[in-house]
């Protein structure tokens, strides 16, 4: 923080404002600077910071003093930051808020976001180095440019007014958004209560509901994201949407399944399908609900849940006994195998090869040696 010098914040002749961001807090290295939250301004020549409440507290440094900079992502309770590493202080440096610092870097902490844009513009300016195009002038000091001070002041005051306006608008937009959101939620709540009442009546068999009406009702629940209060599922299975999806999956997954020995973890399917779609992605529940109707739609795929809770999609033609027999063969052949070794042999993921070995063990063909070195399977000689 000792690289900063006091400035009046007025722009030089060829200097233009590039971007500014309010609610930025400065850090001297890893320590919070003894300054309040303020506005960070990036110009073609400098990085300027001004205290929001006390406009006279204004400091700046030349962009030429920056060695490099990087982003620091936000964390829980921590704002996103930009870390800026600086060259050592020059001997002719003007006075600033810090006499000395043990850190060669500073941080800008973005309390109200804006880091992405600021970082982008800073990168641009550091690449273009527009400050080199002009005759080098002394960084604006308290004594400099008093003649042109007046016109400069008007310029920056005009800009500041615009920004204040924009900020008020944004604030208004956000509170408007929250208001609209609340109103929307009130209406949504009515729908939830209505659907609960209907569901209860269906359960208690009051009135005559047709099959058709039940299907329609389920699709309403799906559209609204309301869980069926009786079964606790967000009613998905049995809707036309999921049946359609199931058909699509049936076509799409045949080849990948063949390539992977007839079985794929559901998470793998999720990634595969959504990457292919690009937009209008499936939710995890959509995928599960679609897979649940494979059998009733007579598609050649099955959803299967292992004891461990792992869910897979497998080809119906996937012959269990064959798989177990071949697992036994591989293990006997090699004497013993871990899930990782088995996976490598067959080109399967460790997760799925482990399930296959566990299955063979369940059927009594293999037995395990469980030690800290891992789980190893041997042919069952008992």
């Amino acid at each position: 923080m000792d690289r900063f010098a006091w400035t009046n914040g007025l722009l030089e002749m060829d200097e233009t404002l590039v971007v500014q961001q309010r609610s930025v807090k400065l850090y001297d290295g890893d320590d919070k600077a003894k300054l309040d939250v303020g506005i960070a301004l990036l110009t073609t020549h400098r990085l300027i910071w001004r205290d929001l409440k006390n406009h006279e507290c204004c400091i700046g440094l030349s962009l030429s003093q920056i060695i490099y900079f990087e982003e620091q992502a936000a964390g829980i309770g921590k704002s996103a930051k930009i870390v800026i590493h600086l060259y050592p202080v020059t001997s002719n440096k003007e006075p600033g808020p810090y006499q000395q610092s043990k850190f060669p870097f500073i941080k800008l902490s973005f309390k109200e976001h804006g880091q992405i844009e600021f970082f982008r513009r800073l990168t641009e300016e550091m690449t273009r180095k527009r400050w080199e195009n002009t005759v080098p002038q002394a960084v604006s000091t308290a004594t400099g440019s008093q003649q042109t001070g007046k016109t400069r002041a008007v310029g920056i005051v005009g800009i500041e007014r615009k920004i204040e306006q924009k900020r008020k608008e944004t604030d208004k937009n956000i509170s408007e958004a929250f208001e609209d959101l609340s109103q929307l939620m009130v209406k949504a709540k009515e729908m939830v209560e209505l659907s609960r009442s209907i569901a209860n009546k269906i359960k208690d068999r009051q009135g005559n509901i047709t099959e058709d009406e039940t299907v329609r009702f389920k699709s309403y629940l799906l559209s609204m994201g309301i869980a069926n209060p009786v079964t606790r599922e967000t009613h998905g299975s049995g809707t036309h949407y999921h049946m359609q999806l199931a058909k699509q999956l049936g076509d799409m997954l045949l080849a990948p399944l063949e390539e992977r020995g007839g079985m794929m973890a559901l998470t793998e399917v999720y990634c595969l399908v959504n990457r292919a779609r690009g937009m209008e992605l499936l939710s995890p529940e959509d995928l599960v609900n679609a897979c649940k109707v494979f059998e009733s739609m007579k598609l050649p795929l099955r959803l299967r849940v292992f004891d461990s809770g792992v869910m897979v999609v497998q080809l119906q033609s996937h012959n269990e006994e064959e798989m177990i027999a071949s697992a036994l063969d591989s293990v006997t052949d090699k004497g013993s195998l871990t899930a990782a070794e088995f996976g490598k042999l067959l080109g399967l993921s460790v997760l799925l090869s482990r399930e296959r070995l566990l299955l063979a063990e369940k059927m009594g063909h293999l037995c395990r040696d469980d030690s800290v070195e891992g789980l190893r399977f041997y042919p069952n000689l008992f």
Partner: protein
Amino acid sequence: MHRRGVGAGAIAKKKLAEAKYKERGNVLAEDQIVQMSKQIEAFKSHLEEFASKHKQEIRKNSQFRVQFQEMCATIGVDPLASGKGFWSEMLGVGDFYYELGVQIIEVCLALKHRNGGLITLDELHQRVLKGRGKYAQDVSQDDLVRAIKKLKAMGNGFGMIPVGDSYLVQSVPAELNMDHTVVLQLAEKKGYVTVSEIKDNLKWERERSCQVLDHLLKEGLAWLDSQAPGEPQYWLPALFSELSSRDVTPEEANQMTP
């Protein structure tokens, strides 16, 4: 003659039931479904209006997203349940979280050989952001948590373990009970833990401590440093900070003895 009587009687009975219901203010279910279909249409257009004004806000403002999610939860609505839901189709919230889900799965898969399927929320966040690139939509840790909650539906053992002032994200179906979790929390400060530390801090007997540590070793979540001065140290790769670790390839990992 009889038949007609029966028929007429049945109709009359139904009319009586209907009247009774209406009298008591109890509307019939089928009437309510008709009412609901009308309300759905009305709601849809309200949501469309809301979306046209505020869709961008949801995309850009993670605070707004949190508010939105919390309000939905309060009234009993899950906006992420289906890509076919109104919320997803009109507000676009779905795609944001479902894509995030894909990115989370991929990061966890890529690092599993190193950390056994356990990763800090911080590291996951950083790596996801990196993968998304500089100009992509900013993503908060709250966004990640919500995406992970949805992934649980696919049964692959996605879970979150509170540790320190943050979380560990588990992406494998390894069984971790309270004992394991507590030891993980103990290890969080230094990245490793010893049997003595467990005995001193948790007041467990040696056998219980060893059992828990052995399980973590077996699951690939902990690595044993038997050459540490004093007693063996059990290190958790998930807790290694980025700065002090080098990325290990799966081949190298296989050659290392646990």
